[in-house]
Structures are given as structure tokens and as C-alpha cells.
């Protein structure tokens, strides 16, 4: 926290913290002021508020900004007019205290609907709003995952398709509520009930042999389904039901292994399962369907031999799968670094565990995707990273932002990058020094000034700032 009075940090840092605040106040920059607001003493905050909330237009900007500090949004909610209230109700950063205040102040159903679906709305707010006269407010309450079970149970009695669908998917809906809903809801609601982890066993049993394929499909996706029902669904005549069953995390590996599946769609899903036997993996690696091979090429349990086989595949996407496989041995990575397809090379270049030999092969590239991947890789030689930071493509240069080992020279280049997004993103780099960040306080882009000021305020240890 920066303060004008003495605290237990170094005099230097404190003075510079004061200097930053003084500068922001002198320049009157809304965005820089927003950046430091949470890091200053309450007394200084009220000074900053004159910069931040000076005009109605500024108040509207701040009320809608998800990056605005919560305490500022809270302050803004005091006596907010309809326009401000609507923006605050929509802003996902608005804290519960402000939402409660807005609920008491504001009768506009649009704003109340936003309050009812707000991720920070607490149980008390949701209970109150569930009694709102407007159906759209009640629908939003029903769809909010924080709505308590008793409210959900009460809303289940309302004859409204959207409320019923929301409740069928609500984590707070218990077995009794779902049973009640089953009698009221349409086929879509029933399908959602069958997929719900709290669905009563009686309803699950009905769905197992339901003629409606939608119900069986949703049932097959329910993680609470018992093994015998799941086994039955694995042999369902409809492949979309079998596909849903194969994706169910409750399924045991052996049951899937035992399947001699005719549908390529289902085999593709089998290839994505985390646990597979060596036999099944081998079968899938030689599957006639190329999507099956693409999926299995990424499977972590693939043996080195099978990976080598797929690394010679004619399909570049299969080879890319091998290049991205966490079990891919070093010698294959070296081979794939010289692959004719740049997208395969890029898959190797992204890997921090790629051997030095692979990296040195990749350094010959001029492909944007490979360069972008090398730019992110902490094992790319520093000189090459500097060259990437000077590349004429802004997207390639931006890769440096994601490289925790990027040398200072590359970072400074990014901080002076002509492309605003690159400057905005480099501000967050841990190795960019504060002197370079301080220069960005004058950036023409508000986003850059905000991030620069916030970072300097967080560090509380800024270098000498320009007046």
C-alpha cells in the first residue's frame, strides 16, 4: 500500500509511490488512476476519485469496466441512477455489497435480471429476487448456480419452460425437485433431468429403455449412472448413445476395450479416453479412420514404437499429434523438427522439453507459427529471441510476451513495439524492469497506461518518474 505517511517499507519505495500518485493526480489520467486505486491509502483514494469519477461519462466507463477495482464499484453504487445501476449490475466485478444496494435502489427489470444472474449474487440477494414479479428475473434466479435448493424447489412449480430447463440443470436441484419437474416439463426438460447427477433412480430406470434416443443419450452422459445400465447403453443400436456412453467418465476401461465398435465416430471417442489398454491403443493407431489416428497420436500411453510409426504417417495432422504427445521420445522430436510441414515443426517448437538438437534445426525457419512457438520457448537462444522481437509480424513478436526467460533486450523492444497489444501485454512480464514500465505511463493506449500504473503501484518501488 502506498502512503504519504511513514510505513515500514523503504523510504525510497515510499517516496516513489508518492511520486507515482502525485504524477497520476497531476496528469489527471483516468486509466492510470484506476490502475493504482487499490494500492493507495484510503485518504489518497478520495483524491483519485476526483480524477476517476469527475464526469458522468467517466463514471459510466468505470461502472462498465470489469477491471475496475471492486471497492470503487462499491462506492459508485451509492445513489447510482438507472444508467449507472444497469452498468454496475452487468459488470461481473461488482461485489455483492454493491449488488445488494442496487437491488434495494433499483426497480428496472433489466437491471434486476442482471443482478439475478450475477456471479457475485449471494443467497440472500437471490432469495429476494426470486420473489420478483418479472418472469425474466425469476428465470435468471433459476439459472444462477448459487441459488439455494429451497428456492429452486419453489421455482420448479412455475409453469415456464425457461425456468424448468434452468432448474433441470441447476446444481441445487435435488431428487425431489427433479421428480416434481419430470411431471411438468417437456421432452427437453426430461432429457436434462436424466443427465442430472441428482436424478432419482426411478427416472434413470425409465430412461434406460426409453424409445426417445435423446433420453438415452443424456442418460449415457450421467456420471452417476450404474455400471449395468452403462454397459447396456454401450451396445445401444444408436451410435450417438454409444458415443455418449464412451465419453462418460464413470465407464471402466475394460468395458471400452471390449467393444468391437463399427462406428468411426465412437472409435474416435474411445481414442480420447485417458485409460486404454495397450491392445486397444495399437488397434486404434492402425485404424482406417484418420481422425482416430489423429486422436490416438496424442494419447500419453502410446508406446515409443507406435509413436515412431505414426511419426511417419502421410497425414501432417497425425504427425502433429505425435509432436504434441507428452510421451514423445527426444529422437522423434528431432526428426519431427525437420518435418516438411511447418505446423508439425511448430508442435515441436512449443515444447520446453525439446532437445537442443531439435531447437537448432528449428532455428532455420521463417514460418510464422514456428517462430511464434520458438518465441515462447525458454530454451530458444537469447539472440534468436531478440531477432523474434524485431520480426516484422506483430503476432510473431508477441510470442516474447509469453517467454519467462526472454532477455531484457527483447522485452524492451516489445515495450516500444508499434503494435499496442504487444505493449499492453509486455507490461505484465516479470522480467521487464520498472524503468521500462514507467515509460509506458505516457503511452497513447489507455490499456497500456492502466497496466503500467497498476504494476508500478503493486511493486511500490518505482524508478524516478518523469514529472
Amino acid at each position, binding site marked *: 500500500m502506498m502512503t504519504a505517511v511513514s510505513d515500514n517499507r523503504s523510504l525510497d519505495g515510499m517516496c516513489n509511490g508518492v511520486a507515482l500518485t502525485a504524477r497520476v493526480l497531476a496528469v489527471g489520467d483516468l486509466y492510470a488512476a484506476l490502475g493504482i486505486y487499490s494500492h493507495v491509502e484510503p485518504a489518497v483514494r478520495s483524491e483519485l476519485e476526483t480524477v476517476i469519477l469527475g464526469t458522468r461519462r467517466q463514471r459510466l466507463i468505470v461502472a462498465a469496466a470489469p477491471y475496475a477495482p471492486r471497492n470503487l464499484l462499491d462506492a459508485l453504487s451509492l445513489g447510482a441512477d438507472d444508467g449507472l445501476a444497469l452498468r454496475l449490475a*452487468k459488470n*461481473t466485478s461488482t461485489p455483492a455489497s454493491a449488488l445488494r444496494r442496487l437491488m434495494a435502489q433499483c426497480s428496472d427489470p433489466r437491471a434486476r435480471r*442482471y443482478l439475478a*444472474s450475477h456471479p457475485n449474487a449471494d443467497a440472500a440477494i437471490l432469495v429476494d429476487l426470486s420473489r420478483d414479479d418479472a418472469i425474466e428475473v425469476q428465470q435468471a434466479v433459476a439459472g444462477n448456480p448459487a441459488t439455494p435448493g429451497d428456492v429452486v424447489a419453489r421455482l420448479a412449480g412455475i409453469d415456464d419452460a425457461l425456468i424448468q430447463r434452468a432448474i433441470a440443470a441447476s446444481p441445487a436441484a435435488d431428487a425431489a425437485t427433479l421428480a416434481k419437474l419430470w411431471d411438468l416439463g417437456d421432452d427437453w426438460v426430461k432429457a436434462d433431468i436424466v443427465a442430472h447427477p441428482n436424478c432419482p433412480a426411478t427416472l434413470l430406470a425409465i430412461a434406460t429403455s426409453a424409445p426417445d434416443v435423446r433420453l438415452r*443419450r443424456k442418460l449415457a452422459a450421467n456420471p452417476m449412472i450404474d455400471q449395468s445400465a452403462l454397459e447396456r447403453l454401450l451396445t445401444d443400436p444408436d451410435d*450417438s448413445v454409444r*458415443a*455418449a456412453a464412451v*465419453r462418460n467418465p464413470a465407464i471402466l476401461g475394460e468395458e471400452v476395450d471390449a467393444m468391437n465398435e463399427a462406428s468411426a*465416430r465412437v472409435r*474416435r471417442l474411445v481414442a*480420447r479416453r485417458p485409460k486404454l489398454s495397450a491392445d486397444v491403443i495399437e488397434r486404434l493407431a492402425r485404424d482406417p479412420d484418420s*481422425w482416430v489416428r*489423429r*486422436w490416438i497420436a*496424442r494419447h500419453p500411453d502410446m508406446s515409443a514404437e507406435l509413436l515412431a510409426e505414426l511419426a511417419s504417417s502421410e497425414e501432417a*495432422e497425425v504427425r502433429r*499429434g505425435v509432436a*504434441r504427445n507428452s510421451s514423445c521420445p527426444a529422437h522423434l522430436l528431432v526428426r519431427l523438427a525437420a518435418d516438411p*510441414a*511447418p*505446423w508439425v515443426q*511448430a508442435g515441436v*517448437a*512449443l515444447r520446453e522439453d525439446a532437445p537442443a538438437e531439435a531447437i537448432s534445426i528449428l532455428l532455420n525457419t521463417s*514460418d*510464422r*507459427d514456428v517462430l*511464434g*512457438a520458438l518465441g*515462447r520457448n525458454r530454451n530458444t537462444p537469447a539472440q534468436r529471441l531478440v531477432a523474434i522481437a524485431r520480426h516484422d*509480424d*506483430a*503476432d510473431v513478436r*508477441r*510470442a516474447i510476451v*509469453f517467454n519467462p526467460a526472454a532477455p531484457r533486450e527483447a522485452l524492451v523492444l516489445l515495450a516500444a513495439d508499434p*503494435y499496442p*497489444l504487444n505493449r499492453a501485454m509486455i507490461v505484465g512480464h516479470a522480467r521487464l524492469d520498472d524503468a521500462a514500465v514507467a515509460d509506458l505511463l505516457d503511452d497513447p493506449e489507455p490499456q497500456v497506461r492502466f497496466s503500467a500504473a497498476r504494476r508500478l503501484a503493486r511493486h511500490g518501488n518505482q524508478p524516478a518518474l518523469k514529472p
Partner: protein
Amino acid sequence: MSEIIVIAIQRDGELRSSSLEAITAARGVKQAGDTLSVAIVAANPQGLAGALSVEGVDEVIAVKATDEFQPDLIEAVVGALVAERKPSLIVTAHTVDAWSFAPAAAIKNGLGFATDVMALRREGADLVATRAGYAEKVLMDIDFPGKDTVLLTTRTNVFEPASGQGSAKVTEMAAPAADIATKHEGWKQPADAGGIDIPGSEFILSIGRGVADEANVEQFLELADKVGATLGCSRPIADNGWLPKARQVGQSGQLAASCRLYVAMGVSGSVQHQWGMKHVENIVAVNTDPEASIFSIARYGIVGDMFEIASELENHF
């Protein structure tokens, strides 16, 4: 009765198809008694006259000069045409060529001016141009009170290229003296996209950060393949190296220029992403957040989980 002139553009001696689109735009506001001329600056303008003599064009003005990119020269041609012919309207395609000469020509000749025009109409005798404003957030109708001549650049891939055999007469015009202040170094082709064609695709399925993990991307490649779409993505997905940069849609990526159906899954709809797809007639958005900005431009919105919707979609193909 007045004259409308289209400034056609060639590249290395070949006509740019966007010039034919500009002719369509101009033809749409031609009134009874108006003439429509097309001017072309090239080393062999007569050789391009046939392609420009489409239905509705009365005259092709052939300016023999160079095939090189010389915006100062085209600016001088515009100046000479305004002085000699006093056209009511000059139209050219909104391309890198136009960016280089149109603003200067408008200022120097005191013309009414609007760029990147997406629609053009007459209200009575008055011309009204529609363009986007505030980073594509609003559509603006622009009129030009008090302007005898208006210069417009038209957005590419919005107007159909003009076709139909015409019978335009060809007139030669001497290249005016121009103060050439720029030097053309050469054309740089965009990086090889490895067969990925976002600008040319009519159906794009795009994924954003909602996809959560590299391991999930393959599922959407598979879905796109199944439904016959090209897979596009938002910037963070390409930045992460999960999909090639050629698939990125938006301000720093590609323009979905030919797209008629754009399905955005797990894309919030930032202004920069919208830059590349907002114009698409049919946008379908799938997002768990009902407040996501993408819904404000979507024709159809689905508040839901992109993985659930994706597997539901698979059931239909």
C-alpha cells in the same frame, strides 16, 4: 445529368476484381441520364478496357502510364478528372491502393469523402453512404450537403463484381504531370496459410478461449470437418500455438470476407474479433455467459456449453 467515374485498379497489369465491385456500387446509384465511366491507369490500359466494359459502363478512360503502384499519379488523375469532367461521384474500391491516394485526392480537390462504404443509396437526388463507425460498433449514414463531387471507397467483398457484356467506348487520356513522392519497393505476399482460407470460406466455425485446453481443439477441427466449415479462432488460441495464425479471425488476423455463416463457440466477441466477422449475415453464438458481447451481433444465440452443443451438433451430421 451527371457523370459517375469509377477508378479501377490493376496490380502488375492485372485488373483487381474489387474494381468490378466498385462498378456495381456505382451502377446502383446511377440515375436516368447519368453516364458511368471507368478510368484505369496502366502500362497497357487498352488491354484492360475489355474487362471493364461491363453492362452499364458507358466509357472506359485509358490512362497510359505504368503498372507500378504510384498513388501520386492516381491522385493526379483524379484531380484532372474532377477539373475536366466535374463528376458528381467518384468510386474506387477500399484497398491499400485507395488508402494511398483517396484521402489526399479528396482533400486537395475539396470533395465529399467517405471510406469503407458498405452500402450506397439515393434519397431523392441525394447520395447516402453507409459505413461502420466506432470500431464497427455502429452503422452510420453519411450524406454530403453542399458537395458537387463525392469520392467514396467501397468495402471489398460486399458488392457483387459487375458482369454482363457492355459496349463502352474507350477514350485515351494523357497521364497528367504528377509530383511522385513515393517509391514502390515491391509487393509482399501474405504468409503462406498452408491451405487455410479464412477470407475465402463461406462457412466458418470459430473457437475461442472457452475451448480451455489444447487437447480440446482437435474436437472442433473434427466438428468443422464434419459440418463442412473452416475452423477459425480468436487471438488467444493462435497466440498459444494451438491453431495456426492463419486461422485467427479479427483485427490482427483475417477478415471473414466471403463468410455467410459464422458459428462462434466460446468467443466473447471483443471489438477486435468482431472486426473480422461482424459483417457476416448469419452469426450463431454459443457461450455460457448470456452477457457475452458476441450475442449483441448474433442472429441466433445459444447460452450453453460449447462442448455440449458441439456433441449435440455431431448427432445431426
